[in-house]
């Protein structure tokens, strides 16, 4: 897909989903970085159990989320410019993106790759449970909103 030709190759709905999902990924990563790394200091920059593949995954997702945040906002502006904004569809994308990122972070990066844990010196499982349940709830909410948008009569 050439982004220059997006008007022809993707529908307005898909563009709303993409913009929302990219911002969702960016927002989830931003909360992770700002709240858990910098403010609470629960997460650690590096953990002795961090695996090589964990480092690679962390770096790539860090880059993806950083780019996604900015790209999402420009896509949003582009959608508004074309009067193609669909609120419900966009929010469904945001919840899906944020939920998917958080679930990946919580299950694959924290658990499988041992990148770092949610918090240190505490019983870990309640934190893991809350973290991943919130992620799953966001994904479910995203699916519900997606269906609501799909079943709604198209607004002129």
């Amino acid at each position, binding site marked *: 897909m050439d982004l220059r030709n997006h008007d022809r190759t993707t529908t307005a709905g898909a563009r709303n989903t993409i913009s929302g999902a990219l911002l969702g990924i960016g927002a989830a990563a931003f909360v992770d970085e700002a709240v858990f790394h910098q403010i609470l200091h629960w997460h650690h*920059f*590096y953990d002795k159990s*961090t695996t090589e593949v964990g480092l690679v995954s962390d770096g790539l997702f860090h880059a993806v989320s*950083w780019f996604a945040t900015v790209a999402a906002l420009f896509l949003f*502006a582009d959608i508004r410019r074309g009067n193609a904004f669909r609120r419900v569809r966009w929010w469904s994308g945001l919840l899906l993106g944020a939920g998917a990122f958080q679930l990946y972070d919580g299950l694959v990066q924290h658990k499988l790759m041992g990148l770092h844990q949610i918090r240190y010196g505490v019983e870990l499982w309640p934190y893991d449970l809350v973290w991943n349940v919130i992620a799953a709830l966001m994904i479910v909410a995203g699916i519900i909103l997606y269906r609501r948008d799909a079943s709604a009569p198209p607004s002129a």
Partner: protein
Amino acid sequence: MTDHAQHQTMGHPSPWPWIVILATLGLLYAIGLVRQPQSKHWNPWRTLRWYAGLLVAGAALIGPLPVAAQTSFVAHMTGHLLLGMLAPILLVLGAPITLGLRALPVARSRRCVRLLSQPAFALVAHPVTAAVLNMGGLAVLYTTDLYRIMHEHALVHVVVHAHVLLAGYLFTAAMIGLDPVIHRPSYLYRAVVLVLAMGVHSILAKSLYAYPPAGVPGDQAQAGSMLMYYGGDAVDLVLIVIFCAQWFRATRPPPRIVPAALPSG
């Protein structure tokens, strides 16, 4: 000061090669400005960006920072962010090739365009090649003995820093360049290369935390690693915003045709 002892052989890096190189680049741009055809307007922001870029590169290469970088990895990393990332953005947005082509007489300008259209130039300027030169150079610098060797040999020091600036310029030009190129890959293609390159930068940065370069003490490596990771983010944000703004402008929908303006019937 075991760290200092390791770096004794060379002494402080000489600022003179860089004073000559940067002054020459400044002078060439000034000549280009003077030789602009009267009929054409040169955007003063471009001029400002070019000289700001030379100043930022100068800060990394001349004066207290390179001296401190002999013994401090954090100072070295500050220099890397300025020389390899921030200065290239400013220099690329100075559009020096465009200025040069306009300043030359038409016949010579055409010959230059033909020269720049050679496959070798197209290959080096391609986003993937530029990204590999840029990130590959950093990987070699930090994962082999090169970092230690660089501090012991003046010539290696100059070559490594020249590579950082040039590769940074090529990569930035491939992403957000204003100068004309033969073939520019699509925005999506470049976005993927940009994200992968940023990813490699983050991976390299975080791995320095665990595996310090030869001759760098652990605590310095950790501070330098975090500076590379988060400082890189800050400069990358500028690059991403410019990249997306260029996409936003390039995809501007054509102006709506007012029905009244259409010929009737």
